[in-house]
């Protein structure tokens, strides 16, 4: 064996250090315990350490980092929502995303693509106009495109969708982007770990201890931890956690499925969404078409994916791109989505002192990763809801003050 290769094998310190420290023991107490090491949990840990100097924090994850919905979404980032609350919140997230690679010193492959939401009916056109006006009011680049303009930039798309659902126009959102989703979790994890946060994988939370109305600790399968503040960042498992603190919520779990095709030569440089056809698609940097549809018809606590989904989605894809007929689907999967009645998240303080929720992320969680982490960190540090997330408080349901976010993806309206 050449000596220079052998030298590498014998070196103790490998040139690339591991991303995170792997702490062996749980401490007996922490200032904050974060349940769930997905993008949201790790972002929350990162901003707690970086912006608020709170580093005695444990992130507990029953599986592995980013193994839940962080690694299962279709990686779309955008802010062209419908309600002022949603638009302001997601806009801040897009801004954070744009600088995030530099902030985390990790290439997130953040790629601004432009985002078309196609309208196939007069009522859809009306909603697109409405969204464009709300967006423009908040200084977000969104505009209504006519059919002819779309046909010019997407010459390979069947504008009549097989004759059944002709495209009348679209909402065009220039900042729409895709990013490498695992890297977002890893980057936040490394940033948090470097600042002293402990990330404990394969550690399951079995219960939350409450005395009076105050959180006092967490029971895990590796022992008991004392702490006064616990935040739940467990997309898809939220009801199991809220049951531990006897909190009722409107969150119901539905699978959201997605799939990718075999790699193709690059042809699609924008993100295309059709609410009427229940399809969204972008082409990854590897050339795969990343596709998703709407949530399953009924609640289910499982990540199984179905043939029905692929069959239905492929049929709709052929409406838009008839030339894809011979292309194979190579992978399909599902994530469990926390669905809420108004398609908005549930965030912030709760009636239980020291218990914070970062939940209800339905089909809109990945794009909110940076801003949810930042606002939740503020909320936990100050024990007061951040201004941007006040509209998403849990008590809005009891106050009949819902958000009504009809700009959410993959849900029927």
């Amino acid at each position, binding site marked *: 064996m050449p000596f220079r290769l052998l030298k590498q094998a014998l070196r103790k310190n490998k040139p690339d250090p591991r991303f995170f420290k792997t702490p062996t023991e749980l401490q007996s107490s922490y200032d904050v315990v974060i349940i769930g090491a997905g993008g949201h949990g790790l972002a929350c840990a990162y901003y707690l350490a970086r912006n608020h100097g709170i580093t005695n924090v444990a992130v507990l994850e029953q599986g592995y980092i980013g193994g839940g919905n962080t690694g299962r979404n279709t990686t779309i980032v955008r802010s062209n929502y419908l309600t002022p609350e949603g638009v302001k919140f997601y806009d801040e997230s897009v801004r954070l995303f744009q600088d995030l690679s530099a902030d985390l010193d990790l290439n997130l492959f953040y790629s601004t693509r432009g985002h078309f939401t196609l309208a196939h009916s007069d009522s859809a056109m009306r909603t697109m106009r409405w969204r464009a006006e709300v967006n423009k009011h908040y200084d977000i680049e969104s505009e209504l495109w006519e059919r002819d303009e779309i046909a010019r930039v997407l010459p390979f798309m069947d504008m009549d969708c097989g004759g059944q659902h002709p495209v009348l126009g679209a909402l065009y959102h220039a900042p729409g982007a895709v990013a490498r989703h695992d890297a977002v979790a890893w980057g936040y994890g490394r940033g948090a770990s470097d600042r002293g946060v402990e990330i404990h994988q394969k550690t399951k939370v079995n219960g939350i201890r409450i005395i009076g109305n105050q959180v006092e600790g967490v029971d895990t399968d590796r022992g008991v931890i004392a702490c006064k503040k616990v935040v739940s960042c467990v997309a898809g498992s*939220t*009801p*199991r956690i*809220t*049951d531990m603190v006897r909190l*009722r*919520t*409107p*969150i*119901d*779990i539905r699978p959201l499925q997605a799939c990718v095709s075999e790699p193709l030569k690059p042809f699609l440089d924008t993100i295309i969404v059709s609410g009427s056809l229940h399809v969204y698609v972008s082409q990854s940097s590897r050339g795969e078409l990343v596709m998703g549809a709407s949530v399953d*018809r*009924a*609640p*289910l*606590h*499982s990540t*199984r994916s*179905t*043939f*029905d989904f692929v069959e239905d989605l492929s049929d709709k894809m052929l409406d838009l791109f008839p030339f894809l007929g011979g292309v194979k689907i190579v992978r399909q999967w599902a994530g469990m989505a926390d669905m809420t*009645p108004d398609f908005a998240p549930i965030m912030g303080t709760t009636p239980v002192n020291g218990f914070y929720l970062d939940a209800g992320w339905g089909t809109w969680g990945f794009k909110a990763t940076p801003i949810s982490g930042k606002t939740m960190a503020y909320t936990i540090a100050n024990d007061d809801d951040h201004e941007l997330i006040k509209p998403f408080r849990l008590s809005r*349901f*009891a*106050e*009949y003050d819902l958000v009504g976010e009809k700009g959410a993806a993959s849900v029927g309206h």
Partner: protein
Amino acid sequence: MKLLNCPHIGLRPVSEFSYGGEVTTEPDPIVSDDKDWADYVFNVNGEPGIRREWWHHGPSGIWFILERDTRTDTVVQILDSKDAVGG
């Protein structure tokens, strides 16, 4: 394609059916306060397990009740709506 056994016309593709929410008991609207009413309208039992749900068969317009395991998506029992709610 997955099939569902409609209590009235037998096995049909599941795409003909729609989910209508968990079976719950409506509180008395005269005596219940806003908080209880909001709890009834919005909150759900999101825990995984067997639960009773309303399902609707589109082509025939019939509502019925399913007992379904929300961990495995398997039907435990199909009930006629009048058997289940005593109507």
